[in-house]
């Protein structure tokens, strides 16, 4: 469990570090994911004549679009992406990071918002077309088969699972009645762990025949036919001390 109540590192906040928040199209972020080396993806051009224009150009090697199926290389991502600058107006945006060690740091304030838009070129249009084609493909497809499939299930004289089961049963044999005292011991220790038991579970735990077990249970326990714990057995009240967390062995016959 990590301690989530962290003191926030405010050093950068006090410095009033400014950052840009840029909205980037999905395909572009995918291309950026393919960047190698130091992660250089392209160049950002900021021109200052009259109006400030910002534009991003993607590196050549990253324009290769990976697409499923045909025409892998015919479609390429556009290279030029002008940025559309927006104001931060109605919101005060801050950036905080969460490290893997659960250390929270304020990285700075957003001073500029921008949207990265692809320059509308043929390459972009083609790319979009491809994307649309892909997205309209249904996830599941029905195919018609020539022949019926016969390889899945073959008739078997006796399933392996069954064979094993029968073997196990033979080994175990019928359940034998052990001494009553031993059975009681087992029961008491079981009831130490849980308060309510189903008869089937008890049979499995004690490995006693049902009738014999029921006789014993009738002596020391009581059957809940109704209530939240339906059809379960529990010890008689005089036999258990659940509050104290200990179990009295009770009087053994």
């Amino acid at each position, binding site marked *: 469990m990590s301690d*989530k*109540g*962290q003191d*926030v590192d*405010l050093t950068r*906040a*006090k410095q009033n*570090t400014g*950052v*840009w*928040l*840029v*909205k*980037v*199209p*999905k395909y572009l*972020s995918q291309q*950026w*994911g393919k*960047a190698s080396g*130091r*992660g*250089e*993806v392209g*160049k*950002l*051009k*900021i*021109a*200052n*004549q009259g109006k400030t224009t910002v534009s991003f150009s993607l590196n050549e090697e990253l324009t290769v679009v990976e697409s499923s199926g045909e025409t892998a290389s015919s479609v390429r991502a556009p290279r030029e992406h002008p940025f559309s600058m927006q104001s931060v*107006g109605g*919101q*005060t*945006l*801050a*950036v*905080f*990071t*969460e*490290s*893997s060690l659960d250390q*929270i*740091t*304020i*990285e*700075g*304030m*957003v001073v500029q918002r921008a949207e990265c838009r692809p320059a509308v070129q043929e390459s972009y249009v083609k790319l979009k077309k491809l994307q649309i084609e892909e997205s309209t493909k249904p996830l599941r497809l029905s195919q018609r088969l020539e022949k019926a499939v016969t390889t899945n299930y073959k008739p078997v004289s006796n399933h392996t699972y069954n064979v094993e089961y029968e073997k196990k049963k033979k080994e175990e044999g019928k359940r034998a009645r052990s001494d009553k005292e031993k059975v009681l011991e087992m029961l008491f220790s*079981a009831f130490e*762990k*849980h*308060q*309510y*038991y*189903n008869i089937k*579970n008890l049979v499995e735990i004690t490995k006693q025949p049902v009738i014999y077990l029921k006789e014993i249970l009738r002596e020391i326990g009581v059957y809940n036919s109704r209530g939240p*714990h339906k059809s379960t057995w529990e010890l008689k009240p005089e036999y*258990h001390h659940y509050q104290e*967390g200990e179990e009295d062995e009770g009087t053994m016959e």
Partner: protein
Amino acid sequence: MTSLGNSSSTGTEYIVRVPKNTSKRYNIMAFNAGDKVNCSTWTQARMERDMSNRRMYGEEETPEAGAGSEFGKKQREEARRKKYGIITKEFKVEDQPWLLKVNGKAGRRFKGLKKGGVTENASYYIFTQCADGAFEAFPVHGWYNFTPQAKHRTLTAEEAEEEWGRRNKVVNHFSIMLQRRLREQEHGEEEEEVAGEKGGKKKKKKGGKGGDLRIHDLEDDLEMSSDESDSSGGEDGEGKSKSKKDISSKAKAKKKKKRKGSDQEGLEDSDDGDFEGLEVDYMSDESSSEEEEPEKAKPNKGDDVPKGIDEASESEEESEEENKNEEEGKEEEEEEEGKKTPVQTEKKKKKEKESSGESDSSEDSDIEGETASALFMKKRTPPKRGGRGSAGSSRTGSRPGTPSIDNAATSNTLRAAASKLEQGKRQAATSSSDTPAAKRLKMEPSSQSPSGKSTPQPASGKSTPSSSDVQLTEDAVRRYLIRKPMTTKDLLKKFQTKRTGLSSEQTVNVLAQILKKLNPERKNINDKMHFYLTE
């Protein structure tokens, strides 16, 4: 590799890098501009996940071992869920809100809720400029909208609803919270308003009610009403009694407003609805503060402002309610009867024209209601004055008489009631100041005119002692017949079995005998045989 931007003629170029292995996840912390948050002013901040929703997705708390547990319960539960296809949403820590505390305990608190759908269709990147002039772009992992959390006290939902209902009346909204705080302080500020303060609050309310009732100021009204709401708001568990008190306080406030003649908007629908539930509440025992209310009701009598029927019926109900509370038990029931009959009669009057036959029945029940009310007096007549105005002005005219006969014996009231009947019959559109005596005088000569025959009957032959409207006596019958012509049906109605103590058969027999003795005149009015006597 350091690469500075090459400066071309007008712009510069920067290299953009997207670092690959960052251990840090970038998130956006968004504040509303109006909250005026400036991160650089923060001296200290703490942030943690708000885990309060964990319960929602957690399973019920059944002990897994030891007492109360079942063997194999977990597996069975799991199997059951799978069988039914129940899928519970996981509790994802990532999606939980953030709690941000700035500047320690006394500083501001914010809650940051995760905004969904940010990373679905487009990616956000944070561009930061590095020392070498290049830009580094980091993808934004999540967006959290942070809102400041109120540290001042707010009203709960119930309190807010009450105040909303009162918004047109309360002028000074600032006092609402003030009153509430004062109230809390007086009660020693126990843990919650609801718990353990019911007794104290009740007493306080009683005292408050008593005290406030004596003040007639508009503002004090508001205080009182706001007090009521606050204190009653605190008693969330009170339920019925609380709503009743609210209603009574509202009713009181409303009545006071009416008295002052301040212009009110039309009664709100919710208020009308409130009164409907009142009849159920009549049986609940009420605080002693309600005793004060009849005092208030009395000054109400002097009000001569003509009111619409709805207003009148409502004010009737108000006064009813108040009276009810002080006279519990039998009186309540009787009043209820009395109350209901006038209401019924009002309705009847509204529907029926003022013609003799039908109006007789309404008048009769009206009179019965009157008699009942006359017994407990004091409250109803003034509102009724206004109420009847439209239906039968003559009846309203006669009302003022009844208060004056307040303490008189029931026979007197019967007389008054009977005289009212006459007036109604004649449809005299008189004003309100006539006395019954005057009316009677007027009626008597007119009653004599139709027939010159007078059949004075000796006072002997009375079967039962007089001056009791309960007994079916010759004298009583004669009185009725002198006043106005009546059918046998009407006469029977007069002597209801409940009142006379006789069975219906007996009543019929006795009445027949009396009629034979009296031998009244017969007249056909509206195809019905009416008896009358002249004296």
